[in-house]
């Protein structure tokens, strides 16, 4: 599996994503600078977390208009796998590859903690190494992760099985306390209709190493490795 990691000014999880992809695929991912208008030919495009352009406008809004994004949208529409994590998820909603929006956390505070997610759909390239409904441990770190979609869009996302992950407790139960940011229906990540684009607030790349937090996040990259190699 060949992969690329997009680097915007202000990206700060680009190295973490690079390391996780390198460890799982055994190949060096290509780091692509935001100003480039050419995308290398890869199987997976990863948009990492961070504060692209300082998030001084709406999170992800500036990055969604940077030169490289036109090319990413085009490739996504041609079926190339695209993963957006945290700020990357915000960029994907801002550029229209994913529905909905990420609002300020309900607490109005930044939140960094370990969370559990249920795997809502394990039939995709991103999630095939998980059991359906299995609770997995990853971490969140964001100020604007409160997923929202208006009822019509939400019904479609839910009805089509586009929900990838929901926040849950360690036993996999959807309890209010487990939702770190107030996301509607406890949604932590969603697919596009074709299931080749995944956006998620939690950071699988920070849970890809036994010495650091565990390996539940790494299984997402292993799923991709299986599907795209």
């Amino acid at each position, binding site marked *: 599996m060949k992969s690329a990691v997009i680097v915007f000014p202000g990206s700060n999880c680009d190295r973490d994503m690079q390391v*996780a992809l390198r460890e799982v695929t055994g190949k060096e991912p290509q780091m692509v600078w935001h100003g480039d208008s050419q995308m290398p030919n890869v199987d997976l495009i990863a948009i990492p977390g961070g504060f692209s352009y300082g998030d001084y406008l709406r999170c992800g809004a500036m990055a969604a208009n940077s030169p490289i994004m036109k090319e990413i949208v085009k490739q996504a529409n041609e079926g190339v796998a695209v993963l957006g994590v945290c700020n990357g998820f915000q960029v994907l909603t801002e550029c229209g590859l994913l529905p909905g929006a990420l609002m300020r956390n309900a607490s109005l*505070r930044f939140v*960094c903690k370990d969370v559990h997610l249920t795997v809502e759909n394990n039939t995709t390239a991103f999630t095939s190494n998980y059991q359906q409904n299995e609770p997995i441990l990853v971490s969140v*770190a964001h100020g604007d992760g409160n997923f929202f979609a208006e009822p019509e869009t939400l019904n479609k996302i839910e009805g089509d099985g586009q929900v990838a992950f929901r926040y849950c407790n360690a036993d996999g139960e959807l309890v209010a306390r487990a939702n770190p940011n107030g996301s509607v229906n406890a949604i932590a990540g969603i697919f596009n209709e074709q299931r080749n684009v995944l956006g998620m607030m939690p950071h699988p790349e*920070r849970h890809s190493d036994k010495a*650091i937090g565990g390996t539940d996040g790494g299984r997402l990259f292993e799923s991709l490795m299986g599907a795209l190699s």
Partner: protein
Amino acid sequence: MTTYHPEITAEIVAEHGLSVEEYKLACEIMDRAPNLLELGIFSVMWSEHCSYKSSKKWLKTLPTEGPQVIQGPGENAGVVDIGDGDAVIFKIESHNHPSFIEPYQGAATGVGGILRDVFTMGARPIANLNALRFGDPDHPKTRHLLSGVVAGIGGYGNCVGVPTVGGETNFDPAYNGNILVNAMNVGVAKTDKIFYSAAGGIGNSVVYVGSKTGRDGIHGATMASAEFDDASEAKRPTVQVGDPFTEKLLIEACLEIMSGDSIVAIQDMGAAGLCSSSFEMASKGGTGVELDLSTVPCRETGMTPYEMMLSESQERMLMVLKPGREAEAQAIFEKWELDFAVVGTITDTGRMVLKFEGETVGDLPIDPLALASPEYDRPWHEIEMPAAVSIEPDGNVKALDVLKSMMGSPDLASRRWIWEQYDSTVMADTMQKSGGDAAVVRVHGTDKALAMTTDCTPRYCYAHPETGGAQAVAEAYRNLIASGAKPLAATNNLNFGNPEKPEIMGQIVGCVKGIGAACEALDMPIVSGNVSLYNETDGKAILPTPVIGGIGLMKDSAAMCRIGHKEEGLDLVVLGSCTGHLQQSLFAKQVLSNQEGQPPTIDLEKEEATGRLVLSLIENEMVEACHDISDGGLIVSVTEMAMAHGIGAELNIAESELGQLFGEDQARYVLATNDSESILLAAEIAEVEATIIGKTKGDALTLTSGASISLSELSAAHEAWMPGFMEAPVSREA
């Protein structure tokens, strides 16, 4: 020069914080009266903040050397060897005054400043820590200050993508008018790629990079060197505004240019901005410097040379480049969308010459100004060890009820509400974050890890400064040991009141003596630091607060130890001896409202021997969990160990043995182990007292009398206080 040369009156001199004697000295050095710009430069260079004029005499007594030390105090940050060609670069710095005036920006720019001190030297920053002190929780400003400071630390650190992994937060009415915000940063570099600030190479270009210069923060260093009064709110415009996005770009651009060889010297523009950075670079290099201020990138039009030299706009750096390397450097900074300007040259005149629009607007001799920087031997009173008092609660005290109220008190309650606002896991190398003894961060791409901690117990320092100073070092040492790291070195942040008062100067002298003795005995040289004085409002000083930032090395991070035991049936062993010392303890404070008497004795030999033993036990994998004993005594340590995984303990201590339970005797650790026999034997050989005090068991803490309290009850009290405090509705009466 007439434009910038208004009559210097006594008022103007006083406004610049210079005494009459200091002004006379300035005139002697200049051989004429300085103009306003020059006066401004004297003012900041001789401010307490930049010159350490009150503390220098005592700081010189601290141990700063050792085979592990590559660079001690005097540079932007300290540098210590961690083997394999790697070095750790770190420093702690205060942003107390600005944070009280404007908590969000004050704290944010504190983080930004300390980050720059570290990456200026060639390191990639890998961790942020902090040490915070606030006033009484009931004081009407406390919540506002706490929420602003925490949001500011998070807002900056989270955006630059450097994890905030540890720290401490405490409350005391003595900080009502002067909060403390001390920020520490730790970075890692290659030992052959360390950058220094001494200018060199006559004719080399002086280059300005980063953000534009604005009118913010003018005279911040002078403000930070004065007491507060009711008018201090009016000083808000002297607080700088941070831009962490630009800082992130500056980190990446600097590390990119540093991977080549075009830089001769580099210095961040911190306190007193362009003035102090250019002055210090020339002073250290024994050169002169000429700046053309017309070329300084400015945020607004019409800025005067005075404003440009004294502005504390953030996210700026000054560099001296090798000849002919300007274009290469410019390309890097332009890629990162940062300003780049050649603003001057290095000269051989030994003078700082400032030009603006073709005119010379300032001309000062560098060495005489630096060497004549005042150094005071301020009068001080020795603070004697107070008389012992007897702490005798009445017979009705129920130890476990006390424990529950202590765990839920402002002194000991969980700080989760704070540290969950900090991104602690970005960079994916955080092995242990807030909530344990030390934070542990892996050295990227290796099996090594660095342990780090910030510590100080101000009530001990107030009772007896020398003991308190030593205790701060000892506690940092213990926290590093308990995580399985060998303590390497330390940085200090000395926060005190007005040094012109002999009793405050006595606190400074006492604490520095204690720190010096402990650093010597525990082999933790001080390699960097910061002094913050005049933390007083309307004549009331803070508690003496000499914060120690300790760094330790774990050669094999797989041996790392945590505070929580994960199974039942382990023996709990205390290493170190207990006399049941309750004076100056949290128990005495909370149960008896007694804050008198002597702090616990610091026996540095014992401290070292016990620490060495614990480290060897951890390295030999004989320890399942380890926690040091500090605030609140043994029972609090055991409670924290038990709460980590919800596995309780049965202790062979009676409820009536309050000294055993709550005593704060030093040099002690609790270990959970399945090999207590070997540990007792090793302790006997090392001549360290060792006692089996109980076993891990169940989901409660139980004492010999059968008294018992469930962990869920303790955890609930522990976790409830801070969210309840911070999120309670605002009282209209306040």
